[in-house]
């Protein structure tokens, strides 16, 4: 296959064919069980959403390490902090709109200020939760977590990466926020794809422009890059799964070598990955930037693919942004 995929990442062979479709949350559900097997201090707290947040397997495997909190996200954050202070490694789960949405103050003071070793799991993140509508579409969670000192923010791109991240975060002794979506998304990485917290991964080499994406938009970025190569545009694609601390080196290198950047994320335009990238670019190597994101409005009900299309959170939206940024180069 004549693509420019970086071989060292061992991405799925069938990305441009018909990739497997698996919800990222399944990766979390399996990862947290493995983390639990590796360390007996791993515990899970959940707010009446055990099945949909994919905690059922952990509950079944470690019934004595699973804590049902009821619909009380604020209390859950404090409980998790207290358990962390007593040596546990709590993963606390709910939908991202509530966790970190509803319990942000508790995350700020009970967890981050005290460096509590709590893993905050935001499920059903992004607009692709679909028919539930704007109230349940977490499109601000990266912004409100990225601004908190001490907190690591991770947005994995697919099933495998979510699984690896769920395992890996137990090994770092600090608070972490990780978000993942509800629906099936293409599996673009493999069991062999290396994953390291804090390192942005250049999945595709290119010289004309860089697309820096996270979550579900990494796949769309790769598709967009392939299509653009047909127009003679060479696109670098970076999977920036760790939004904080962000990999400044990779971003500065991309700005210098390609001279234009497009960010892409399933999140509001303000405060998310795009803002994080822009902060690095503006301070170090200013180049034109365009943003693929939800443009400062609320979502609405619809099927996931309809919504992604409507709001331009797909390869088409990325292609448009790339062409626009190249005109400004």
């Amino acid at each position, binding site marked *: 296959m004549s693509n420019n995929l970086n071989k060292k990442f061992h991405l799925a062979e069938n990305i441009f064919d018909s990739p497997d479709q698996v919800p990222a949350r399944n990766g979390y559900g399996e990862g947290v069980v493995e983390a639990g097997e590796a360390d007996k201090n791993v515990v899970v707290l959940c707010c009446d959403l055990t099945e949909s947040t994919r905690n059922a397997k952990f509950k079944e495997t470690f019934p004595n390490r699973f804590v049902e909190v009821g619909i009380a996200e604020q209390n859950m954050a*404090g*409980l998790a902090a*207290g358990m962390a*202070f007593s040596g*546990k490694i709590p993963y606390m789960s709910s939908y991202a709109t509530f966790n970190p949405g509803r319990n942000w103050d*508790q995350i700020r003071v009970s967890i981050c*200020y005290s460096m509590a070793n709590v893993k905050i799991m935001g499920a059903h993140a992004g607009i692709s939760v679909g028919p539930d509508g704007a109230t349940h579409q977490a499109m601000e969670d990266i912004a409100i977590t990225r601004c908190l000192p001490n907190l690591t923010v991770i947005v994995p791109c697919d099933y495998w990466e979510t699984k690896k991240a769920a395992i890996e975060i137990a090994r770092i002794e600090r608070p972490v926020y990780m978000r993942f979506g509800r629906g099936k998304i293409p599996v673009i990485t493999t069991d062999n794809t290396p994953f390291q917290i804090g390192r942005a991964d250049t999945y595709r080499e290119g010289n004309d422009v860089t697309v820096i994406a996270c979550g579900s938009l990494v796949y769309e970025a790769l598709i967009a890059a392939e299509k653009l190569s047909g127009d003679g545009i060479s696109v670098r694609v970076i999977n920036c799964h760790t939004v904080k601390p962000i990999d400044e080196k990779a971003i500065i290198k991309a700005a210098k070598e390609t001279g234009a950047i497009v960010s892409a994320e399933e999140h509001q335009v303000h405060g998310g990955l795009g803002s994080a990238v822009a902060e690095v670019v503006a301070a170090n190597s200013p180049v034109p930037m365009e943003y693929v994101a939800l443009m400062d409005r609320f979502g609405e009900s619809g099927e996931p693919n309809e919504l992604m299309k409507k709001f331009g959170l797909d390869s088409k939206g990325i292609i448009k942004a790339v062409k626009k940024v190249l005109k400004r180069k």
Partner: protein
Amino acid sequence: MAVTDTQIEYLEDMATHIREDIIIMLEKAGSGHSAGSLGTADIFSTLYFHIMKHDPKNPDWEDRDRFVLSNAHICPVLYATLAEAGYYPKKEITTLRKLGSRLQGHPHKGALPGLEASGGPLAQGLSIAAGMAMAAKMDDKRSKVFCMVGDGEMNEGQIWEALMFIGKNRLHNFTLIVDRNNIQIDGFTEDVMPLEPLKDKLTSFGFHVIEVDGHNIRRLIEAFEETIFEKPKVLLAHTIPGKGVDFMEFKPEWHGKPPNKEEAEKALSELEQLRSLGGKITCEHE
């Protein structure tokens, strides 16, 4: 085990020392919360110098009892107690709220030995303490968890979330102390947002509730030592805000205000008199 008069006198005297420290640190800081700090000094003396198993030389001792101050704005009483117990040098109390101090305006866990949690935004401490009690229960540990909340603080929804959780899990290693001083910033608790019948409410959540005079150390000890099988406990501690300093007692304006130099001198001379009387302060509820 019966408590001797000498032990009681020691604890009363310690409470007076704690009150003196509070006055000194608040006057130097120039801001902070006087009334609640003074009002709970007897409870702190009882907890840290009689009830709790802890080791100031080894603050991270795994099997220690833990205390979490949820109404964290009254941290001067906690800082004073930790200094008296030997967690850090007492001369540091004059750095409260100053740049570079380990005694932050509201507690910062990790800044000072003996602080079990950060606090400030109300109700958070109760959930944290419940998490500690849950962890101890999971691991079959003997350590106990104590948590203080203010009565006004109980307006917060998170309090009731946490109480439900503690009741559900029958955290018998957990003791909640409600500082029932009837006052919050905007006035009397029963005018701002009525809590009564508070004892009934707490009982219905699965707690063993003991009403106690928060200034009677003998009664406090009895209440702390009373246990009911498999039930978490609440001490509904009736306290007088500003207790020990006549001109501060029951005056809402002293909630969030420090004494100036002159007021501090007056307060300290009152407290010294108290000490020369063997530390005995009158118990309104007796």
